[in-house]
């Protein structure tokens, strides 16, 4: 067997992790499902109750669909970063660190199995929870509002294919913006993954605090630098505008930049794991 990466061994590590911690994962899933269900049922009920007299039932449904999809996107991001901060849960105390680090699998397999769980596994779990919660919403609303148009979430309305005529119940104006937001989500998720390798306990709170401080410092630094060099923001924009002209190019470049930083963070998290020891010395 390969000493760095072996697919069979990766599956063994993944299987061991899931089966030994299935109760915790099940609890996380139920919590996620509960929050989604309560939120979307409340939103739908609120919308239908306020529009029972509306003549355009389809319009109400499209409006609700947009609101629900927006809420689902926010929930996906919020749960995603919370789950990402649990990356190092198998190592959050000394005895657990001994157990995990001595499993005869490579560092790559151990980190990749955790990454799969908090990234791909989480994504699948979220959409299953969302689908289940949505089914309950449809059942509840169909029962409570038999005269209104009630249907499952229309995911086709997340982003508009053509950029002209934005509207008609779409959440985002184009797929370019969708990819930009997706890359921003992965950037944020990777920051929390990286944070988990620094703080194995209360990782979410600690990473969140550090990110808030860093963002404030960064914004202030940028502001001061711009004001020192260009007097006001309009002048700075005039300098910036000719460099990148089209909106799509700007969005594309930003998506690329976020993706590169995301990859950098994931790699750094792996290197931090590789250097981890049973006793935190530094």
């Amino acid at each position, binding site marked *: 067997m390969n000493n760095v990466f072996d697919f069979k061994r990766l599956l*063994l590590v993944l299987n061991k992790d899931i089966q030994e911690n299935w109760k915790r994962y099940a609890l996380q899933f139920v919590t996620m499902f509960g929050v989604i269900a309560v939120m979307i049922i409340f939103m739908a009920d609120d919308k239908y109750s306020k529009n029972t007299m509306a003549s355009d039932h389809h319009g109400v449904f499209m409006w609700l669909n947009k609101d629900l999809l927006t809420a689902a996107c926010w929930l996906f991001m919020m749960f995603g970063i919370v789950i990402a901060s649990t990356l190092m849960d198998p190592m959050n105390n*000394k005895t657990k660190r001994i157990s995990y680090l*001595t*499993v*005869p699998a490579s560092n790559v397999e151990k980190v990749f199995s955790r990454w799969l769980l908090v990234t791909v596994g989480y994504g699948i779990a979220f959409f299953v929870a969302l689908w289940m919660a949505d089914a309950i919403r449809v059942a509840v609303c169909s029962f409570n509002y038999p005269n209104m148009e009630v249907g499952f979430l229309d995911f086709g309305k997340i982003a508009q294919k053509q950029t002209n005529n934005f509207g008609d119940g779409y959440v985002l104006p184009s797929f370019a913006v969708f990819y930009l937001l997706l890359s921003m989500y992965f950037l944020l998720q990777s920051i929390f993954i990286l944070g988990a390798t620094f703080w194995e306990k209360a990782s979410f709170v600690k990473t969140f605090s550090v990110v808030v401080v860093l963002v404030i410092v960064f914004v202030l630094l940028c502001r001061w630098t711009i004001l020192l060099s260009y007097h006001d923001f309009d002048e700075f924009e005039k300098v910036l505008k000719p460099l990148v002209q089209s909106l799509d190019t700007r969005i594309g470049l930003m998506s690329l930049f976020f993706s590169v930083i995301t990859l950098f963070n994931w790699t750094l998290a792996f290197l931090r794991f590789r250097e981890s020891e049973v006793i935190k010395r530094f």
Partner: protein
Amino acid sequence: MIEIEKIAFKYKKKQVFTDFSLTIEKGKIYGLLGKNGAGKSTLLYLMNGLLIPSKGKLAYLGQNVSGRSPRVLENIFIVPEEFNLPNVSLKKYVKLNSTFYPKFSRQQLTDNLKHFELDALGDINLGALSMGQKKKVFMSFALAANTPLLIMDEPTNGLDIPGKSQFKKFIASNMSDERTMLISTHQVQDIEKLIEHVLILENSRLLLDASSDEICQKLYFANGVSQIDPKEALYVSPALQGYNALLPNLSEEESTLNLETLFNGVLANPEKVAALFAKEESLV
């Protein structure tokens, strides 16, 4: 089997090892003794890749241990003083973990559990077991994994009185020429008769690294004697019947190894003991 060559290791401010070297050979039971804070657990963790030295070489059959590669980890099993067992049944635990150890023997595990009178545990959740039972289960698994190197840190801590005597038989019955065991403990009477090689660590320095035969050849253990010449003795301590003493074995008499007396004697007179063990080497 394990080659430690001039390693250096430190915690935040405390330098634990500097230019520390040690060789662990195949087919022996090693006893690692030392006072609290001497660096025993640190050494065990280093040997398993759980800690990484800042300098030097630490290799298992030529492979770098600190890289924690699967090939190294499947050959070294550590039973730490405190450990974590998941909240799953023993059956499931064995199913999920045995696959990582190519020489794992289910028959041996059954025998080991029988030895500790735990063979009826199959479907019981490991989380529901007492600390002592967990330790017995974990040690049974560790031995059934058949790794060439088995490291145990304070293995008899938490075991009941029958458990301690079962432990000695258990280790003896699981020993083979292909296997090495390294046992670190303060409960020396629990492992006295098992130990084939003694390592005494003090202030990150090996004060003694010798086989039991060599120790008994060079040192004489006077157990429960009524009179002793303190000038001759390396160490004397009062016992229930007379004295226990450690003397240079000048007349090459046979005596029974007493690890407690040896440990205290080495710590009391490290230079004299070192000189006794070095003499032979220089003649060779």
